[in-house]
């Protein structure tokens, strides 16, 4: 075995920092270290200018007004701020019911759970088998006291793209605040907030080749959306989020979003070719199932279940590539992915799933290596599996009566 590091196919967990982004950040770590809130000297001014340039870049990627962008420490904070902030602000006038999906990121689900502890009620919509939320079911979930709905644009595990425009229109018609977690979407799908009926949208830098520890929240100005701050202090970010701004981090996020805007079209084309190559290679393997809709999906993601292979053993067997089973945030647990279970996948198939996520630095050779590796390892693992043997003998496993021990 060589000392070579495994091939990185876990871009949905986090992306490497683009070297151009790092270059943009370093000056703010060395010579230009002022506090952007220091108005009285040029150290502060340089920092403030960098922060405002970055705010423009983030706004441009999603066609928003820079004044609609609030810096945070990441998408988790953005989601917490949006959901708690809007729910607290509008509950009195509207009510205490929240709609979200069972397949949301933990940062949304746990925040909604926290609001439930505070006395709010929540509806967790189950997606269809393809991972998409049915508009009719969404509409039916809305109540007179529904204050907020939160649905992600791109799912972190299966990459499916929700119809945010349709969902947003339902919210508009019912006077419901609409929050969208777009952490996995920036640089992968076109986002036009001038057109989309979205009130609040969360962004992360480190999923789009920027640094970890910085993100943003879009807060619509027209019609104006209000949120209750979750962090109080110096009154930074027009009172919505206090705390000294991390200029280098923000400059990095701005640069990452600029690159995303300029290179997204060509990059996505290249990534789609790689993904299709990977998809066809893997589908050559018998009893392989793609999780989630393939048409409404970002090209970066491929989530596949390999029947008759135990997921943990598979992960151990494919050390030559770095992938994830379940989303990174929960992969410390051995529970099968709650997202796949919400899609109606059996525990067995959910357990044997692998998320391949492709990105800027993935090559065709990486993909070919991955296909070969999976083919050979799955063959070996299945050779050891009595279930596979029974399946090959034509036994319908669902009809087998297992003896109790």
């Amino acid at each position: 075995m060589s000392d070579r590091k495994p091939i990185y196919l876990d871009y949905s967990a986090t992306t490497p920092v683009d070297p151009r982004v790092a270059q943009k950040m370093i000056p703010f770590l060395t010579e230009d270290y002022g506090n952007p809130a220091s108005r009285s000297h040029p150290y502060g001014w340089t920092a403030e200018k960098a922060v405002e340039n970055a705010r423009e870049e983030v706004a441009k990627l999603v066609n928003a007004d820079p004044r609609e962008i609030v810096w945070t420490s990441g998408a988790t904070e953005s989601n917490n701020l949006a959901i708690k902030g809007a729910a607290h602000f509008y509950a009195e006038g509207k009510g205490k019911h929240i709609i979200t999906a069972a397949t949301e990121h933990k940062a949304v689900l746990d925040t909604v759970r926290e609001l439930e502890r505070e006395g709010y009620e929540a509806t967790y919509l189950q997606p269809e088998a393809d991972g998409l939320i049915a508009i009719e079911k969404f509409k039916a979930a809305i109540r007179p006291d529904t204050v907020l709905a939160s649905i992600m644009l791109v799912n972190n595990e299966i990459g499916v793209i929700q119809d945010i425009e349709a969902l947003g229109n339902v919210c508009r018609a019912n006077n419901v605040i609409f929050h969208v977690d777009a952490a996995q979407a920036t640089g992968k799908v076109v986002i036009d907030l001038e057109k989309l009926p979205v009130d609040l949208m969360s962004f992360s830098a480190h999923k789009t080749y920027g640094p970890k520890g910085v993100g943003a929240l879009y807060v619509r100005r027209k019609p104006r959306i209000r949120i209750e701050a979750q962090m109080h202090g110096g009154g930074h970010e027009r009172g919505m989020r206090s705390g000294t701004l991390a200029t280098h981090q923000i400059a990095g996020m701005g640069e990452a979003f600029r690159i995303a805007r300029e290179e997204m079209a060509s990059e996505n084309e290249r990534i789609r070719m790689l993904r299709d190559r990977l998809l066809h290679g893997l589908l050559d393997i018998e009893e392989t199932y793609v999780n989630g809709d393939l048409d409404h999906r970002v090209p970066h993601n491929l989530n596949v279940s390999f029947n008759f292979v135990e997921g943990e053993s598979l992960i151990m067997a494919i050390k030559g590539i770095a992938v994830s089973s379940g989303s990174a945030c929960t992969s410390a647990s051995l529970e099968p992915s709650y997202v796949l279970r919400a899609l109606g996948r059996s525990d067995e198939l959910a357990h044997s799933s692998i998320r391949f996520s492709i990105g800027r630095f993935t090559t065709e050779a990486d993909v070919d290596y991955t296909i070969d590796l999976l083919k050979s390892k799955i063959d070996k693992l299945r050779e050891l599996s009595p279930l596979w043997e029974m399946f090959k003998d034509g036994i319908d496993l669902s009809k087998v009566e297992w003896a109790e021990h």
Partner: protein
Amino acid sequence: MNTVYFDHNSTTALKPQVLQAMLPWLSQTAGNATSRHIYGRNVRDAVEAARKQIAECVGVQASQVVFTSGGTEANNFAVKGITANLTPTQILVSAIEHPCVSRPAQSLAWHDWQVQSIKTNAQGVIDLADAEEKLNTRTGLVSVMLANNETGAIQPIAELAALTRYKGALLHTDAVQAFGKLAVNFETLGVHAMTISSHKIGGPVGIGALILDKRLDIAPLLHGGGQERGLRSGTENVAGIVGFAEACKLAAQTLKTRSSAQTTLRDELEIGLHDLNAVIFGQQAQRLPNTSFFAIPNIEGETLVTALDKAGYAVASGSACSSDSTEPSHVLLAMGVESDLARSAVRVSLGESSTESEVQGFLKALQQEVKRLKGLNAVAA
């Protein structure tokens, strides 16, 4: 012209060694600390090594360190998180707290908390007798900073801890300005929670920590992936965390020599300030060695700061966080300073790189600007 930077309490330059420690984590090395592959494990190892280093610097175990996005978040987390698990009673904060302590404390009034303020004396040190009088068995949480960001006045936290312990109240201290400038030991202070921040000690902006007593029951501020043992969700800012740890290590190594060098420079500065008839705030208090907060009567602080900036010296008028506003410093008002004099306040905060010739140059520039501005005042009058 190179500007001389005398605003280190606002933020201070990143140390070159800190940048070196951070760079590998800002390069193409990917990895999410929660992923189980080698990339993720490398990140996890780096985060845990950093946590251990920071824990050692403040005399606790690694498990007592919870990383946050900075001092503001850590203070909000402390005030809101500790009170969330208590029956609403009374919260006591000093009159000189940073807004990121006093504002979350005030917000508790909406949740049936009785918010009270501990007075300070004319030197900017909290009045322990007042604290004792206000403390009662219904006091849930007390929060007082370890050193004030404007005056540099060091607060008697260990003494306060003895009082709060007697009444069964929990104690939080915001040690953002003190950490790295004083030897700070969590156990010796006897507090239940303590806030520290990276960018005030030569580390990167955007990272801080809340140090917790092992038995403390605290609710998270941010919910999600369950990082930081469920107390602070969100993907770990590994470059920031590694940089913070390196800065802690360096600050501990240089603490003694830096402290005595800065005391000498600050005293020299203040001799010069006396000659200009400046009023020095909190001079009789035990102060951070690098901080001097003063006023030249009848000259607006803002005006003087702008003039000094043109002359090549970056100083602050109030705390940077509120330097948008023209309100006089709440710290000075709490000390009983007249608001006219408070409006004249200027803060010099020295750093590790500050030199005697910079201080002398500053005094010369100050003298000239004061003379010029007084001349303008005379014309106007």
